[in-house]
């Protein structure tokens, strides 16, 4: 059976980059790579809910972080082990200096949405690689 790719965003609530992770995860799961991806609640993973942890261990995992604390990455490492890939939403802005996201956490501003779209495409590409690697 083909493995699913779980996308785990940090969803940090203090800065817009966490919201970008959350929305990018939805964009990939709903539109760019539907059917082969799934999202799970980070707090539930950290809580150690057995069904969730077991499911993630059987599949591929990508973590998305909004700051260099890398909470989603470290939380997943602590509970599941090393993820198959990790992304940092701030890296999109480092590569696209003209796209400074608005600080609004909800709803996202126009620049933030654009950053999210670029970020989602990068993640979707990695999902494709991970899925292809399974075939």
């Amino acid at each position, binding site marked *: 059976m083909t493995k699913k790719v779980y996308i*785990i*965003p*940090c*969803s*940090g*609530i*203090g800065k817009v980059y*966490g919201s970008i992770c*959350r*929305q990018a*995860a*939805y964009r990939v799961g*709903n539109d760019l790579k539907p059917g082969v991806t799934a*999202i*799970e*609640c*980070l*707090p*539930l993973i*950290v*809580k150690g*809910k057995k069904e969730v942890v077991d499911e993630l261990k059987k599949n591929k995992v990508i973590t998305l972080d909004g*700051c*260099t*604390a*890398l*909470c*989603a990455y*470290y*939380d997943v490492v*602590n509970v599941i082990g090393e993820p198959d890939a990790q992304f940092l939403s701030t890296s999109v802005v480092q590569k696209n200096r003209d796209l400074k996201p608005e600080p609004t*956490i*909800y*709803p996202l501003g126009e620049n933030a949405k654009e950053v999210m779209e670029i970020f989602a495409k990068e993640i979707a590409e990695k999902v494709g690689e991970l899925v292809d690697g399974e075939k």
Partner: protein
Amino acid sequence: MEKSKLILNTKPKIGLIACSGENLVEGTITRVATRIVVEKLRPQITTILCQPLFMAGDIKHKGGGKEREFAKIHKTITVEGCEEACGKIAVERYSAPAAATIYIQDIMKKYPQLKPESKEELDEDGLKLAEIVAEEIATTIDELYNSQ
């Protein structure tokens, strides 16, 4: 929506942790409701604690330890999107028992006509619920803040 009350901040702030669960519309409601409280309803007397940073508290050089320290010495409210109560359990495990826990589903039961559907982007019902939840959080904040 109730306007922000101007309060002279002489007492310790109240901490807020939203579950922010990604897999449920209720998680998105906790997130939006908490932002409404800290930005509009009670900005002077509250501080938001980042749930993932709190849970990854071992990353002390990045501030995770500070979030746990805050919750040890300040009253903290957790806002839960489901009965798993991840925020409440995390606060109790790493800091101190939460001063209060608000379960979104309990509030939603009082408003059965509101049926939020999209966890990605809150629809009209979701936004209405977020505002109702925010008001309930604000009421709890006032009780806790005034009792200090």
